[in-house]
């Protein structure tokens, strides 16, 4: 029986672990947080069909329990050395592990919206991120603003920390557009009288049923889409927000008062992935995400033989894409182990 160590206990790590256990391998999953599940633990409903996140999470977690592989929580990898075809791994919990292969599934971090200083996140009371809103969208979530009233006018800002020279992230985070559409519809359902605006550069509805949801947002839910980026937000004396933008379709500057501003934050490789790259001696793209050896045929292979990549540590990905990528990682590991015996 071969031993595979997986770094990261989000959906990519869990799915890879399940598939490799199914293939008859012994798997140890290392997760730095107290519980597995990754970012999924902080989400409520999934695009494009509003599936409750618990549905996906419970299925994957039940599968993990059933497969009964080892999970080390509150643990990080300190060092990895390859010797005589084996990986010697030392963890922060002082465990010494010997593995035949390693899978990095260290995921991503959300862009810290404070870096877009002009939007006043963590300064103005009613500027929140899409991650914050996701918690408020739970049935017991409180979406009231100043004075306990429901917001009458809400604006979403797309591409916060993505496709943005100033924040140093030139890439598209892929999932924010459809997240914005999903969250705008959810807010409309909760607040039928509110005006809801989305400020966007492009709307990249690349996935199955994404475009349909975007159309529905306009036709059925009366969400207003304005092509223009926000230049700044400021707080008024009543805690509402003055936002400035340009409507680039009409070619006019635009100033609007809103009660709630939602920043659709993108994905970044994050400290976990950078640390995994250093520990494993594997390269990163200019974006900070981990480099794969081939963009088409070897998207699970790192630059180090025997170290594989799964999920959004390689690029921004939706949950569907992450699960598929994790399964393909498991298949590649399995094939590689067979070929190397």
């Amino acid at each position, binding site marked *: 029986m071969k031993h595979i160590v997986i770094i990261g206990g989000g959906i990519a790590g869990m799915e890879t672990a399940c598939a490799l256990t199914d293939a008859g391998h012994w798997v140890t999953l290392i997760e730095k947080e107290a519980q597995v599940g990754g970012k999924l633990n902080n989400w409520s409903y999934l695009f494009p069909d509003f599936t409750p996140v618990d549905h996906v999470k419970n299925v994957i977690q039940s599968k993990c329990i059933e497969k009964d592989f080892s999970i080390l929580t509150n643990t990080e990898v300190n060092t990895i050395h390859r010797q005589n075809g084996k990986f010697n791994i030392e963890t922060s919990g002082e465990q010494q592990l010997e593995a035949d292969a390693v899978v990095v599934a260290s995921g991503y971090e959300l862009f810290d919206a*404070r870096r877009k*200083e*002009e939007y*006043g*996140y*963590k*300064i*103005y*009371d009613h500027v929140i991120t899409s991650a914050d809103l996701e918690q408020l969208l739970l049935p017991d979530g409180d979406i009231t603003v100043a004075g306990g009233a429901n917001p009458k006018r809400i604006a979403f800002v797309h591409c916060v920390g993505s496709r943005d020279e100033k924040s140093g992230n030139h890439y598209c985070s892929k999932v924010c557009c459809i997240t914005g559409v999903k969250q705008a519809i959810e807010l409309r359902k909760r607040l039928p009288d509110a005006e809801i605006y989305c400020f966007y550069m492009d709307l990249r509805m690349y996935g199955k049923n994404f475009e349909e949801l975007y159309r529905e947002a306009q036709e059925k839910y009366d969400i207003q889409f304005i092509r223009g980026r926000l230049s*700044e937000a*400021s*707080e*008024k*004396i009543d805690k509402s927000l*003055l936002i400035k933008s340009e409507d680039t379709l009409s070619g006019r500057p635009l100033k609007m008062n809103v009660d709630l501003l939602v920043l659709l934050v993108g994905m970044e490789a994050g400290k976990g992935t950078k640390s995994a790259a250093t520990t494993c001696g594997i390269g990163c793209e200019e974006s900070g995400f981990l480099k794969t050896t081939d963009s088409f045929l070897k998207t699970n292979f790192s630059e180090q033989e025997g170290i594989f990549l799964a999920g959004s540590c390689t690029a921004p990905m939706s949950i569907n894409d992450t699960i598929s990528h994790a399964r393909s990682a498991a298949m590649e590991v399995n094939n590689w182990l067979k070929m190397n015996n």
Partner: protein
Amino acid sequence: MQKEGKIQIWQDYQKEIADDHYFYVRSCIRQNFFPGAEQTFLKILRTELNKDIYENPHHTSCSGIGYHSDVVPFDTIQTIIARQFALMTEAGYQNLAVSCITSFGIYNEIIETWKEFPSELEKVRNLLKKATGREFEIPKNVAHASDIVYKFRQQIAELGKNRFINHYTGKPLKIVEHIGCHYSKMFPSKGVGGAEFPHVLVGLIESWGGEVVDYPERRHCCGFGFRQYLVMSNRGYSISNSRKKFESMEPYKPDAIICNCPGCPMFLDRWQYVIEEMEGKTYGENGQGIPVLTYEEMAGLVLGYDPWDMGMQMHQTNVEPLLDKMGIIYDPKLKYARKDGNIIGKPMMVNCGC
């Protein structure tokens, strides 16, 4: 408004400000608009803080307004700046203290250009040498004069006789700060506190007892904006910009406006008078205007300097409401008096709020 978020940003944008031995370059417009401001700054540094600050009478305008108005070419302004640096080098100084925000932006822009394009630096060295025979070193430290006041703000507070506390209510005075676009919008790292939530004036106001007003149009242009004002037919844009700011700050009932840049107090001060003339509207309490101060004047008031000695009679929006709130004793009869006590005559134009 959560101050913790601002504090985080302020920590991210702290710059090195030289401790002593400054070569001072004046503003060409501040001396005309508020002539006592620069003298007050020099007095504070020399007599209160015992600092060495030198100015060479041969230094010139940086020509920044001409540059931003497209009448001074880039090669020309680079050479003018190189000459200022040559005067500094010849005098044995390395720390540049800049009075004007436009100049501060220009100095930073040109130094950064030389870092990015060393061939430009070599070209300018040759141009200056051929034209004047001079050579120069790039300053080790470039600070705006307000940065220096910021650095010593606590010391000034300790030496001070007055605070920005309402004499009648005991509450902090509410003060609007305006830093001037070229202070840090071009290079956020060159300004104390960055571009979006600059700390340079906030630090002064809070250290001296006041409370800062953060209002929606805080970042908006004062109304100078070079082309808005320099081209006469555009001046409607200038006053409408200033008006936008006044309308935005009015609900907060500010007691004063403090400015960083030589141009900003001019426009925020003078246009209040014009708006009163045009629309009968004033933005301060009891039909008065909102006094507009430079940071040097503000520091001078804290230190107990006589407002008329600092040239505050040059303000078109009366400063007396602020002086009264601060409990400053002044002689109204001497507002338009020379140093020998003779009255020079009251201006024909009625001041805002009179």
